[in-house]
């Protein structure tokens, strides 16, 4: 049985990497490695996970320099030299060890008006949305986001401009904008426009490159850029509360 050399971030914003040796197993995921360390070597190690099958979006970390979902990242894929370096997600405050504070990330979803606002009540019939419509297709393209924060942590514009809403919140706004049942479109356009919104995006495509679900937030953001620019030209980009 071979050994995997692991370096893990310990501490908060200030801290250092601590080395561990972990038995290398077949089909081992990065999350398996972290769990082994916490259960067998150092119970004070803090990390976050829930579903272990790529649905909940809670186990994302920086693995050998790149943000990844750890539950579905095989060690064989990333630790080519037998080395694994694990750190908390970048661009977010560090709480402890591998746990990043997701508050700014989710606050920005709220600021981008990422909440569905319908008009129907339980007394109304179902809304029927045909899968063939253009809007349904556009919403579908971005709907599988699990909110893991990998894109946000990979985005340079977030690092340069702390007010920037980031790829996930903007992608969410774009899917809602294409949801024909949603009634908050105008206010949402105003919320996602400008220097802190979609227009700050430089199409680096870090988010699209790293999204574990294979989504293209860059494409969603481009859609928002066009929609908001059109609204601004028409004088319809009013902030309404």
């Amino acid at each position: 049985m071979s050994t995997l050399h692991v370096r893990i971030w310990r501490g908060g914003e200030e801290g250092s990497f601590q080395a561990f040796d972990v038995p290398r197993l077949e089909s081992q995921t990065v999350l398996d490695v972290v769990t082994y360390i916490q259960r067998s070597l150092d119970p004070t190690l803090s990390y976050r996970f829930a579903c272990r099958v790529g649905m909940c979006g809670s186990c994302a970390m920086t693995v050998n320099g790149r943000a990844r979902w750890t539950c579905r990242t095989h060690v064989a894929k990333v630790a080519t030299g037998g080395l694994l370096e694990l750190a908390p997600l970048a661009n977010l405050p560090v709480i402890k060890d591998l746990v990043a504070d997701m508050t700014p990330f989710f606050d920005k979803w709220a600021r981008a008006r990422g909440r569905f606002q319908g008009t129907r009540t339980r007394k109304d019939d179902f809304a029927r949305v045909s899968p063939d419509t253009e809007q349904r297709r556009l919403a579908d393209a971005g709907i599988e986001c699990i909110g893991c924060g990998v894109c946000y942590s990979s985005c340079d514009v977030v690092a340069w401009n702390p007010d920037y809403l980031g790829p996930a919140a903007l992608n969410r706004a774009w899917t809602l904008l294409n949801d024909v049942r949603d009634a908050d479109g105008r206010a949402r356009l105003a919320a996602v426009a400008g220097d802190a919104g979609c227009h700050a995006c430089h199409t680096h495509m870090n988010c699209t490159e790293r999204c574990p679900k294979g989504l293209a937030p860059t494409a969603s953001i481009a859609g928002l850029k066009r929609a908001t620019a059109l609204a601004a030209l028409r004088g319809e980009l009013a902030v309404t509360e």
Partner: protein
Amino acid sequence: MRSDFRARNHPAYWAFIMHRISGVGLAAFLPVHFWALGQALQGEAALDAFLRWSEQPLVKLSEIVLVLLLSAHMAGGARLLALEFLAWRDWEKSLLAAAAGVSIAAALGFALNLFF
């Protein structure tokens, strides 16, 4: 915590680096370019004097670099316009290759004509 180069090592990010360097470079060069052409206000001889000065090898070399910056900024910018304004999915990497090809071809064309 900030990520390092490992998070940025992919073609679209290199394209951004090139776009930013060429953009800032061209913005810095433009006033010089405009001033040089403005020499024509003092007559043909003044402009010619500047053009003779610009025939030094080092200036010629920087001209080729400038043409590369210009063509790269144009081709890269056309790529960005396509990504922002056209519906897209899977062709963004071919677009990048095309942009790189166009800019290198333009700079080569300029360099060859400059020397031969």
